[in-house]
């Protein structure tokens, strides 16, 4: 479900007044991105499912206290998601890794395609693991969750320029790791990317 920022604000307002259907619309819009972000961070599918639900239940609890003040709702929600993941990792004994066991390949792929796909996915997973934690999170928020740089900055508690810098370096590292050519035209110079 795709809704614009204005509609999101409208749904947020109605959900704050206790309208379950409005909250349902927000759930439909954000569930996929939140699930992707959490899946990227915790790896284990069963944990991902539980934690994603928990994020929305916590959002339901915290929504009456939410005030926009220039912070996009997406940023606020993902900050909740981030805290849920941090709590989870803290309380879990074993370390959360990027090992993922669930795969949802496209239905019409043959065995050869599947093997190739798995190989490619493993390469991407390996390349992601080699990033610094902050670079990886920037990629997860920008590419997997689809947040804007401003929202990602809000989630990570950093400056917008810092996020772009992390993203810039992460992209370079991923390209090198995955053996992708690095045409200069595709990587424009980034301003204000100091950490």
């Amino acid at each position: 479900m795709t809704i614009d920022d204005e509609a999101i604000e409208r749904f947020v307002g109605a959900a704050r007044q206790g309208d379950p259907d409005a909250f349902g619309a927000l759930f439909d819009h954000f569930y996929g991105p939140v699930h992707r972000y959490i899946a990227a961070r915790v790896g284990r599918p069963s944990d991902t499912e539980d934690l994603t639900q928990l994020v929305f239940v916590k959002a339901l609890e915290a929504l009456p206290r939410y005030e926009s003040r220039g912070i996009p709702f997406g940023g606020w929600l993902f900050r909740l998601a981030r805290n849920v993941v941090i709590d989870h990792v803290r309380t879990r004994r074993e370390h959360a890794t990027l090992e993922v066991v669930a795969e949802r390949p496209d239905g019409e792929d043959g065995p050869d395609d599947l093997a190739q796909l798995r190989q490619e996915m493993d390469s991407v997973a390996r390349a992601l693991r080699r990033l610094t934690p902050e670079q990886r999170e920037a990629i997860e928020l920008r590419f997997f969750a689809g947040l804007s740089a401003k929202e990602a900055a809000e989630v990570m508690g950093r400056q917008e320029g810092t996020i772009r810098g992390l993203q810039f370096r992460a992209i370079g590292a991923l390209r090198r790791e995955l053996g992708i050519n690095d045409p200069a035209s595709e990587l424009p110079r980034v301003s204000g990317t100091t950490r």
Partner: protein
Amino acid sequence: MNEDLDDMAAAEPLAGEELERMLARYARVRLDSSQAQARRARAVVMEEAWRRRIAATPAARRPRHGLFGGWSARRLGVSLAAATLAGLLLGTSAFAASRAGGPLYEARLSLEELTLPAEPAARIDAQLTAAQARLAEAVDASGRHDDVATVAALDAYDRVIDEVMSASGPAAERALVAVQVHHDVLLQVAGSVPAAAANGIERALANSERVIERLSSTVADSGNGNGNGNGNGNGQPGAGGGKPVVTGDPTAKPGKPAEPRATPKPDKTPKPHPTPSPRGKDDGNRQPAPSRAAP
């Protein structure tokens, strides 16, 4: 995601087509949820959202006096018996038999029915709780692919909400909200029930829709009823005695002579009246205010 990147200014570090494609495919293959997961999560979250909504309604926050303050002696007695039986069941393997679809399931439901309060509004609340429990049993059984238990729980659910249909006043409003949630949950479950339970879920959906319609009209009628009642009384001040009828009875006739007799005020006003009126009681009855102001 990709659209975002396209929209970014030149300062935005772009991943390039190939890396973007790889990351998008990685997200789709390894990070996306299945439809069943999304459906499950939505059902849980929406149930919580509706539960909060129901809890926030003033009627749901009605104070209770003491732990069993609202319970009659009969209900307490039956509850005690039920608790004792539940304890016995818990102590034996027979407890499993009282689960949905088990041989003791109907017996447990009958026992639960006996503990329902007699007071109509409280009874509706208790029936809504029971309906919620039956629904939870159906969802649970459906998740276990236990079609016998699913059908048993759905049948029990149908029976409970049939009774909820008779709710009126604020209880009807609460019932309407609750059954709408049930309908939502049933829709979510409909796609995943065992084939043998498909008829049961369709019946439950149809039944809940019927109850929603009935409760909606009850709620609408009670709103209109008040409006009409006021209108009738106000519309006939001369014939009706000037006092608005607030009974909300849409069948009340405006010219009915019984209404003014029911108002005690006109009878009392002549007594403290200091100036005797040559016209007698009739005037006193009709114009109490000016005569009080006369001295």
